[in-house]
């Protein structure tokens, strides 16, 4: 049962990254869209994510609940030493979620829209930034449980080049995912704009990815060894790179669905490569200690109950979620009633 729980944990993280990430990305794209086109971008985006956006963000809750029920030591350690970025992440989540709904459901459309829009786009940028910083901090080995002063314990645990680089890499990936997703949603005449955006964001992502390697060198994080030191991670990285070439080739050739699969595949491979290199460790601490998913788990009775809850829950959730995606894919939302 422990492996079922761990599988759901990684599935939750992956799906949050793909689906929630594409949502964040839509806001990031809006942030970098020329004023001339912004209204259209907004409409396309709303039609694409409106019905599913609440569900997309549930994966984070699933992952966090699995952590605090199944792996309380990991949850507690992150909560203590990454308190500050977690709070900033939360502020991003609350600001973004409410601004998205407020701007749509405000009965009067006036200058308040500008406020909602600003909050929405900036928090769409900041939330994945801090998500990436938190993820980077978890594996960077900077969390110091022996630290005796505030800065070492609560600030330098997350504020260093490596985690910041991972943060920007995450932002770029989210934007890239969203651009690819929106290509398939946009109307004919807008498609070119999203293809362009996807291309630019893809280049930005590759550059940020390179910066992550540089930062890893600077901070002494053995990233190269993680990614190329074992067969699975190595293969995943190679596949991601190859599929990137294919994606560039297909971009602009009107293969919306194939592009989505490729983009999702790349992100999955990146997460697989890094996850596999560390498994079963989830958090690396300063001084070489680590918190392992196979050593810090809750007692067996809890893991069994949690595993069953997840399995039974997914029997309800997955078909309903699939039908939700399916319904709003096949019946275009453009003519929906308010």
């Amino acid at each position: 049962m422990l492996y079922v729980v761990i599988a759901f944990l990684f599935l939750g993280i992956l799906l949050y990254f793909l689906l929630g990430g594409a949502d964040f990305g839509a806001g990031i794209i809006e942030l970098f869209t020329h004023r001339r086109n912004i209204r259209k971008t907004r409409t396309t985006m709303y039609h694409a994510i409106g019905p599913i956006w609440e569900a997309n963000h549930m994966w984070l809750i699933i992952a966090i609940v699995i952590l605090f029920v199944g792996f309380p030591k990991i949850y507690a350690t992150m909560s203590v030493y990454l308190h500050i970025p977690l709070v900033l992440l939360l502020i991003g989540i609350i600001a973004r979620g409410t601004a998205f709904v407020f701007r749509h459901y405000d009965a009067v459309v006036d200058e308040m829209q500008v406020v909602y829009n600003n909050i929405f786009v900036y928090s769409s940028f900041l939330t994945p930034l801090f998500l990436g910083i938190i993820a980077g901090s978890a594996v960077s080995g900077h969390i110091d449980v022996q630290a005796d002063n505030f800065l070492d314990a609560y600030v330098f645990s997350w504020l260093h080049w490596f985690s910041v680089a991972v943060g920007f890499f995450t932002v770029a990936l989210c934007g890239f995912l969203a651009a690819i997703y929106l290509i398939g949603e946009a109307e004919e005449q807008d498609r070119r704009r999203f293809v362009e955006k996807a291309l630019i964001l893809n280049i930005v992502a590759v550059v940020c990815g390179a910066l992550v390697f540089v930062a890893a060198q600077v901070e002494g994080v053995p990233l190269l060894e993680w990614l190329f030191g074992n067969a699975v991670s190595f293969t995943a990285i190679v596949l991601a790179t190859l599929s990137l070439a294919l994606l560039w080739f297909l971009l602009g050739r009107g293969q919306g669905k194939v592009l989505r699969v490729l983009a999702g595949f790349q992100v999955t491979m990146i997460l697989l490569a890094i996850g596999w290199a560390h498994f079963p460790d989830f958090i690396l601490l300063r001084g070489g200690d680590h918190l392992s998913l196979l050593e810090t788990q809750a007692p067996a009775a809890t893991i069994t109950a949690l595993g069953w809850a997840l399995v039974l829950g997914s029997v309800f959730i997955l078909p309903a979620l699939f039908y939700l995606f399916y319904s709003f894919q096949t019946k275009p939302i453009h003519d929906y009633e308010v």
Partner: protein
Amino acid sequence: MDDLFAARSQMALSLGFHIIYACIGMVMPFFMAVSHYRYLTTHQDVYKRLTKAWSKGVAIFFATGAVSGTMLSFELGLLWPRFMEHAGPIFGMPFSLEGTAFFIEAIALGFFLYGWGRFNPWFHWFTGVVVGVSGLASGILVVAANAWMNSPAGFDYVNGQYLNIDPIKAMFNDAWFSQALHMTLAAFTATGFAVAGLHALMILKKHNVVFHAKAFKIAAIFGAVAAILQPISGDISAKDVAQRQPAKLAAMEAHFHTEKSAALVLGGLPDEDARQVNYAIKIPGMLSFLAHGNFEQEVIGLDKFPKEDQPPVLVTHIAFQIMVGLGSFLMLVSLLYLLALWKKKKWLYSTWLLRLFVLAIPLGFIAIEAGWTVTEVGRQPWILYGIMRTADAVTPMPGIAYSFYLFTGIYLSLTLVVAYLLYRQIKSVPTLYDITPEPAHATH
């Protein structure tokens, strides 16, 4: 502000904020479902308009409730990591089920909000019902987790170790049913009265009376039935607390000294140093009766507990008085309303009854906040009753006061924005939802 106090304040603020949105988010879908049902069976357009108007409210409240709930799942760890490290595996069961229920609610809401004219009308109606049922289930599960903090179960505490963990037993702890019942009825009462009151206000102002009268009736019936049932659930809760947490009951009642045929203390100002209550009305024997079912039985007072194990009396007692007082008032209004529906038709839409409902708009929610103050402050100094102290659970990170100020700012601005949005929704009813202005008497 020291860190423990800041952490407690931030938690109280976050919960206090979330509760309001969660209650509205879980109750409103039922109002919507009734109105939607009326539309599907009678084909009166006003019900469709009403359903849509309410569903916008639900979307706003659900989103705010969802993000504030997400924050809470993090704040539990950010503020109380030592508690969560031990408690997570024991009381995590309701949280994992709640995650499922919440997820289903989000999916169903997607279908409902965007499903007009896309699906079979009854399937569409059903998705609205699923929103309500899964919301209700979420609420009950979260309350079950809180009940475990009041009534720890499902583990053995041996030399500081938490052994033989049984998460199912922990979920079905002794307090879960009484707390879940009380909270569910409270959610229906508070939301019913708040919604009915807002529509009553519009009727009084003679704005779109047809529309608001239909809305008023649905909300008022839900609120009234729940408010009348609530005292029964309150009695179950009181007897349960007397059994399990005598210190909390003593603080609620400002019952300082253990005695037989104990008096019920109404109102008054507890003086914690002098161990007495000033300016109170006392009903002899009544506390014994309410707590244990006979007028003679001894009721344990605060004197049976060492000083360091006693909850704050002043806050707990006053919060309890507020909750009971407001609950009783809402019950009386409910009785009047049901009497009007049943026998005294001419009272309906008479100005005084509508005014009572307008007065009641905030009262249910104030009662809920007061009730949670009783539950939480009355459990102090424990975070896990009798086992772990709140002071031992708080995060080691200093400077929590700044985090508290930050969250206060966020919640304050969110509250203002939501109020503003609601105001604009209601103001736009004439242009968006009403088509047939008719005189008030033609509504029934």
